[in-house]
């Protein structure tokens, strides 16, 4: 039997990998992919805990996380497409119209 801690460690490590990807990549699409990785990490820990605690609430929550992730990604990607129509780039640092140049 694999202990629960192993699943939690895997989940946490996966979350951190996603976080690093989110913080360091330039492209918005890659940042969205990193967010997906983080949501999957959350799901692993939710389902693992649900399994080990013999309670379905974690899985219900994971179900909602999956639905929200799909909805969020759809909106994010369509925002990206409408932004791309105005400015043909997916690099986050190019969207700096509101940035104060003095700093």
């Amino acid at each position, binding site marked *: 039997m*694999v202990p*629960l*801690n*192993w*699943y*939690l*460690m*895997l989940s*946490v*490590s*996966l979350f*951190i*990998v*996603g*976080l*690093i*990807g989110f*913080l*360091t*990549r*330039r*492209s918005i*699409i*890659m940042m*969205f*992919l990193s967010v*997906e*990785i983080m949501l*999957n990490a959350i799901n*692993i820990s939710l*389902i*693992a805990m*649900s*399994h080990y*605690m*013999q*309670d*379905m*609430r974690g*899985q*219900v929550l*994971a*179900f909602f996380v*999956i*639905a*929200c*992730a*799909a*909805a*969020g*990604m*759809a*909106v994010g*990607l*369509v925002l*990206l*497409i*409408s932004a791309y129509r105005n400015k*043909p780039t997916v690099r986050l*640092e190019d969207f700096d119209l509101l940035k104060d140049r003095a700093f």
Partner: protein
Amino acid sequence: MLPQLFFAYFAVMILGLALVVITRRNMVHAVVWMLLMFVHIGGLYLFLNAEFFAVIQVIVYAGAVLVMFLFVVLLLNLREEQGLPIFIRGVQGRVIIGLILLLTLVSAAGQASKGQGGRFSIDYIQRQTHIKVLGSVLFNDYVYPFLIMGFILFVPMVAVVVLAIRRSNGSS
């Protein structure tokens, strides 16, 4: 011994593939590696007695969300992005912060202990099948969250149509 080995395989593959994903320059390649990672996560769910989630993982994440990514990557012409650097400036500092966070969280996760067992034991789920158990919990105890979830899924649908539609006369 065998379960541990399987878990180790899946854990190494998931983490390795996640690292591969976030370091790819070509986004189509990243999406393909991500697909492989999602399939592995689905395999991990099978060990957790959640076969419905294993399938949902593949249907929703791999079949819908990632295809959406792939569509967007292919719709946008990203040829000129290829030559530019992958990571932003000052990447090392962020990675170090991430690693510190990793150490903290992993040590915390190592000390976690499970609480009181509930009524959904493994035998019960196997007897009733996972879909039935999940369905009964979802539709009996969590009806209102489920309905709200339906609404949450509906709003982005409208939002996507409104945002993506090109007006025939007007702007552009």
